[in-house]
């Protein structure tokens, strides 16, 4: 089992009446709510937490891309990852990921991911999301019904750029380049492990299976609701006669650990509610523009993460509902272990993205929960998949003689 410590990097200073005064935390959130001086402290606090997670033994540390979003402060996850690689030496750097349809030209992603892989000594996990409608269509102006086509072309270009030893011309519908020549190239060959974060489009399953990519289901609604979609994915894997390695799949889950179940509520309830009640306040008109999901997906009846119903429900969810319905896994180390095991086995995944800093959680509490998870939960979940223990196809392969971060800089005169 692999565990990645993941931070969405929420803005923790949203006013109490945020929902009443503003229609959305995403896309048209007033940027007067952002204070760059507080932002300075916050970035460093969040990056310190990610580095702390490596020190405690998490296998990976994870960042992602969102735009104009009050719960995600990383329009460029590569900038954050560039900082993390300098102060860590072991953990996978999971950039989940770069929305490749947004980069013009997309060769930029091939270059920056190669830079991160080289800088980290081969520790990059490269995520290629199609991107949410909020980010991709409303913030970055991509035409919904052409987004997937543009994504597919960008993917082809990046893979070719990493693989080719000679400059080549690329005549795409969206990108034309006379000389594609990726410089630098990644350490991990033929490419870093590629993860496809999915929300609920069934085309993504075949794309992952065709290319042997990891399918990562990222949702905030927990593993019980995730099961419908993950089951669909595994059925498709079986249909396509691929092996059933759990490392083909990953899942993101909010997790809070305390000494007891009651203590978990006392410590974390307010912060979890900040996230669900305030951070998921998204205007439904931004959630599903026509053409973003294909007719095939619509007909399958796969429900988007952010249906009007779900969005309407988030603000009033209580701690009890959040915990009982497993939106969050929270409680004593034993409670969390049991539920994590149910998640891992139920969804058949070999990798969990643990969302351990939630909403406006303080640094102290985030570290407390993280430490308890690393010391009392993680070790007892390591061997859930003994028969797939040596399957490293979806894991990093760092170079052995990579440099370690210098802890103390000596200044000589």
């Amino acid at each position: 089992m692999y565990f990645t410590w993941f931070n969405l990097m929420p803005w923790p200073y949203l006013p109490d009446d945020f929902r009443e005064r503003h229609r959305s935390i995403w896309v048209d959130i007033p940027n007067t709510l952002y204070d760059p001086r507080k932002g300075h402290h916050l970035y460093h606090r969040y990056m310190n937490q990610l580095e702390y997670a490596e020190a405690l033994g998490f296998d990976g540390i994870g960042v992602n891309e969102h735009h104009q979003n009050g719960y995600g402060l990383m329009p460029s996850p590569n900038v954050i990852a560039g900082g993390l690689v300098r102060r860590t030496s072991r953990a996978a750097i999971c950039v989940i990921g770069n929305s490749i349809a947004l980069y013009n030209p997309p060769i930029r992603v091939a270059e920056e991911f190669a830079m991160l892989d080289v800088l980290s000594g081969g520790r990059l996990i490269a995520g290629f999301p199609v991107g949410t409608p909020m980010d991709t269509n409303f913030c970055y102006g991509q035409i919904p019904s052409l987004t997937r086509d543009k994504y597919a072309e960008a993917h082809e270009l990046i893979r070719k750029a990493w693989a080719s030893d000679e400059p080549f011309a690329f005549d795409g519908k969206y990108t034309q380049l006379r000389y594609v020549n990726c410089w630098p190239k990644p350490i991990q060959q033929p490419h870093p492990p590629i993860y496809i974060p999915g929300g609920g489009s069934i085309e993504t399953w075949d794309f992952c299976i065709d290319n042997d990519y990891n399918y990562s289901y990222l949702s905030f609604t927990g593993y019980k609701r995730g099961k419908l979609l993950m089951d669909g994915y595994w059925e498709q894997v079986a249909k396509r006669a691929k092996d059933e390695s759990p490392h083909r799949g990953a899942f993101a889950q909010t997790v809070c650990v305390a000494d007891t179940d009651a203590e978990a509520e006392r410590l974390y309830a307010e912060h979890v509610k900040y996230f669900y009640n305030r951070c998921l306040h998204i205007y439904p008109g931004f959630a599903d523009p026509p053409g973003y999901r294909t007719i095939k997906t619509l007909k399958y009846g796969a429900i988007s993460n952010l249906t009007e119903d779900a969005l309407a429900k988030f603000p009033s969810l209580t701690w009890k509902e959040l915990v009982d319905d497993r939106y969050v896994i929270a409680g004593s180390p034993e409670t969390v272990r049991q539920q994590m095991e149910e998640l891992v086995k139920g969804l058949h995944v070999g990798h969990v993205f643990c969302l351990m800093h939630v909403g406006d959680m303080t640094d102290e509490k985030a570290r407390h929960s993280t430490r308890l998870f690393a010391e009392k939960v993680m070790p007892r979940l390591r061997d859930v998949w003994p028969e797939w223990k040596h399957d490293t196809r979806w894991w990093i392969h760092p170079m052995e003689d990579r440099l370690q971060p210098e802890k103390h800089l000596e200044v000589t005169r």
Partner: protein
Amino acid sequence: MNARTVETKRGAKVRVLEGGRGKPLVFLHGAGGLFGENPFLDRLAERYHVLAPELPGYGESRGEELLDDMLDFALHGWDVVAALGVERPHLVGHSMGGMIAAEMAALCPSDVDKLVLVSSTGLWLPEQPIPDLFAMLPFEYARLLFHDPEKGAALLTEGFDFSNLDALADFYIANSRRMAMAAKILFPIPNRRLSKRLYRVTAETLLVWGKSDRLTPPVYGERFRDAIAGARLVVLDEAGHMVPYEQPEMFVSVVGGFLG
């Protein structure tokens, strides 16, 4: 009106409503598509040979994948005219259909007899931005599209049984299919630089706007008037963006008066 399906040279299968005799008049619908009932077309068919094709993705027309950008849409318009076997028709375009008709007239100026643009999109005035149709919830449409939102809402949902969940799912999918297509030329800003090409329009042009158009207010009509040589603008009272549906009598009389 009768319906028939024609296939364009490019391979799109297009359903066309057809009726009447006389001079051919091609009507291009807006982003919402044709309604179940289109009384203004029936009235126009009393005087003209009316042809109202549905864009791929609308109704039963297919071939969405063949059309990606503005040039594709405009050439498709001419391909449909060719497939219908009519020559030098009047072009009447409503909303998005106006944008397509104007592009067609700019591309092939001598192939259009007269041009009518109704509440047309295609221009963008930063001081009067067009509201974002694609980030809107269905219940918000009527207020934007009609002078009388209450009557408008009834028109939009006419004959629809909201208690039938299957029908609701079908409606959702059909709406998604239509608007996904419209987004190719309207998203994120409904401006594909038509303003650079309007000087090429030589057809005699009438612009019809509803005074209460809250989507593309009459100032857009004024800009079209300024950009197309000799164009005339008529602004109708008690009409919004959906002027042909909201004031069919007045609309037909103004258009008929112009086309002769």
